[in-house]
């Protein structure tokens, strides 16, 4: 007979289920990505996911010599998130494989696999690619017709990139840049009809995924709300102070990677704080850093760096933010 300490039952929750739920939540973004960027988006996603799984399997089999954990779906999550964070250009189909190697090899397996990585692996891969291949990583395909099936797309910058570039000229204001470049309207931005990374463009697809994760209790509202809320308020203050030099808050949170980062990457269980209060601090930190990098940093986009920086202080937040003890 079996002997063990109590309890003798277990909820049917498992790491595998959580990871596959995240994957399911990422599907709407994949679909919008394909809708806007066509075949490239699909190919990049497939290559990225396949490479992540392959590298994880190889490392576990030949270096760590542990049983394979590819089935738990975490490599697929990393692969999809990595693909969603790169522009859907033809170059990326092969470059993303290098990103996958860094994400899985350096970002995850060096620390001992899922659960032990201090940084979000997909972001490690993405930032590595951004620094190593800055040209390819900032060449964005323009969005023209729906379902463009050709691999060669015309390249154009993202709204954030245009504004950043435009503002660097003397005497330029937000309005003049927008007028000169025919930027997309708010509705187009909300639907994702603009330049940008593969998965980050459509806010509505991200919201559908995030609401699914909230309902399945994979994530809590704390990090996304704190992240987006802080970004909104901070950029709002800047905009009110000088509407000619700063983008309005609604455009701020809908463009670039804020939505995707706040809902899917900052909420990564492994690299975010555990207590609710800690999660709020984490979200606020991400929001502040993103806006600071966007407005005063060298890059037009700062979500990846903001989340990675906050990942690095997560252990400290965990140490400081304790749950409320009973009767204390």
């Amino acid at each position, binding site marked *: 007979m079996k*002997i*063990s300490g109590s309890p003798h039952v*277990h909820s049917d929750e498992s790491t595998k289920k959580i990871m596959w739920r995240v994957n399911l939540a990422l599907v709407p973004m994949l679909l919008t990505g394909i809708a806007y960027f066509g075949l490239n988006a699909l190919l990049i996603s497939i290559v990225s996911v396949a490479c992540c799984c392959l590298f994880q399997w190889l490392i576990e089999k030949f270096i760590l010599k542990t049983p394979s954990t590819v089935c738990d779906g975490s490599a697929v999550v990393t692969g999809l998130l990595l693909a969603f964070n790169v522009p859907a250009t033809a170059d990326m189909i092969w470059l993303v494989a290098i990103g996958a190697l860094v994400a899985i090899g350096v970002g995850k397996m060096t620390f001992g696999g899922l659960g032990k990585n201090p940084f979000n692996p997909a972001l490690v891969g993405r930032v590595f690619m951004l620094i190593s291949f800055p040209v390819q990583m900032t060449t964005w395909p323009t969005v023209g017709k729906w379902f463009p099936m050709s691999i060669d797309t015309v390249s154009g910058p993202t709204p954030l990139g245009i504004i950043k570039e435009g503002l660097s000229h003397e005497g330029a204001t937000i309005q003049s840049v927008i007028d000169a470049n025919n930027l997309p309207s708010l509705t187009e931005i909300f639907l994702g009809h603009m330049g940008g990374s593969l998965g980050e463009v459509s806010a509505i697809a991200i919201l559908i995924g995030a609401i699914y994760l909230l309902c399945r209790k994979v994530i809590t509202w704390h990090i996304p709300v704190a992240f987006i809320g802080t970004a909104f308020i901070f950029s709002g203050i800047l905009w009110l102070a000088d509407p000619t030099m700063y983008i309005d808050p609604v455009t701020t949170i809908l463009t670039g990677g804020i939505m995707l980062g706040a809902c899917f990457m900052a909420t990564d269980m492994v690299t975010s704080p555990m207590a609710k209060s800690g999660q709020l601090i984490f979200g606020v930190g991400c929001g502040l850093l993103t806006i600071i990098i966007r407005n005063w940093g060298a890059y037009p986009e700062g979500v990846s760096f903001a989340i990675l920086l906050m990942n690095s202080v997560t252990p400290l937040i965990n140490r400081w933010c304790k749950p409320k003890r009973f*009767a204390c």
Partner: protein
Amino acid sequence: MKTFKMGGVHPEENKISTNAAIEQMPLPKQVAVLMNQHLGAPATPIVAKGDKVKVGQLIAEAQAFMCANIHSPVSGTVNKIDVCKDMVGLPKTAIYIDVEGDEWMETIDRTPDIKRDCSLEPKEIVAKLKEMGIVGLGGATFPAHIKYSVPEGKKAEYLIINAAECEPYLTSDHRVMMEHAEEICIGVSILRKALGVPNAYIGIESNKPEPIRVMSEMAKNFEGIIVEPLVVKYPQGAEKQLINSITGRKVPSGKLPIDVGCVVSNIGTTFAVYEAIQKNKPLIENILTVTGKKLPSQHNYQCRIGITYNDIIKHALGELPSNTGKVISGGTMMGKAISNLDAPTTKGASSVLVMDESESRRRPESNCIRCGKCMNACPMGLEPYLFSALVKNNRIEEAQSHNILDCIECGCCFFSCPANKPLTDEIRLGKAKVRAMMAAKK
């Protein structure tokens, strides 16, 4: 509906034996009465080999402060006083009695009439509880006479009767309420009198609508008994959580319920109190659920204490199913796995739960993904994942500073862990290490 504020989980209820009326378990050939069936020091035997004993006769006396009297559950001859392995296989002292007939002590009132009036003074009630060897039947088997003698300078304001029965599978409390509602209410009135509190609250989880109805009807005939339906959430029946649910008060770390003016008693105990005070019947019987998802039949039995688990299984099921993986005494969340079925039952036993091979297997452990589910499930607001790491690295002092001793071992953390880490096991080990360290420091 009331509930506690923090944490908690909702395991599958599996109350499949609710409709099985309480049956009388036939007498076994021999019983072994363990000398430590309660929290505290073991009782001292006062009979010798060859002595004839009657049902209800005192056979072991409480000599230490934290101890309870033990009475013979059967009539017959003392066979021997010897080492007996308890259900986890550890040796304990026991009195073995060969059963001959069923001759009860004359003082015990065996008539089915209900005796409603109690003329005893509070002090006399407590003395009689001690004499009759009553202990708490909720699991901790805390000697009742100590619980009902309120220390000087403290005042009981609430009497809370725990009928939450939040553990999956268990139905003995459910059945007792259905079949002995009036006796329970008389028992509650007696305890109310012993403590001198104005109101007694009976907390029942709302997944038991029938007992709530029956008890509410009955409580109308009594003064100061209030039935409180509670939200179905485990561990609703844990002492600190139940107090929080019903009164909103919180028992601080390291303090007892009486420090916030509460006394908590199990519903089974109140029935035992009624029998002891009104009928002079010591604690020699308890009600056990024999259940299991894959078993052909479900039962609730009234058993004499000291009957072996094997005897119970033989009577209820013939024999254990061949694919039995685990037999548990108690519920699935806090029960103990039995490794020795030849062990006798004790006063605190509440069930024999049979799980088959597939139900009893634990799933393989994987890395912690720091999801924080253990922390959100913890009803004490602790951090099980942190204890797991600290205990593994032998950082015992740190574990103590994070209040590891506040853990009530309810098992919510392990239950909710997606990585199947044995968190409750690790915390138990950590608590043992912290206690050893504290003892060494003294």
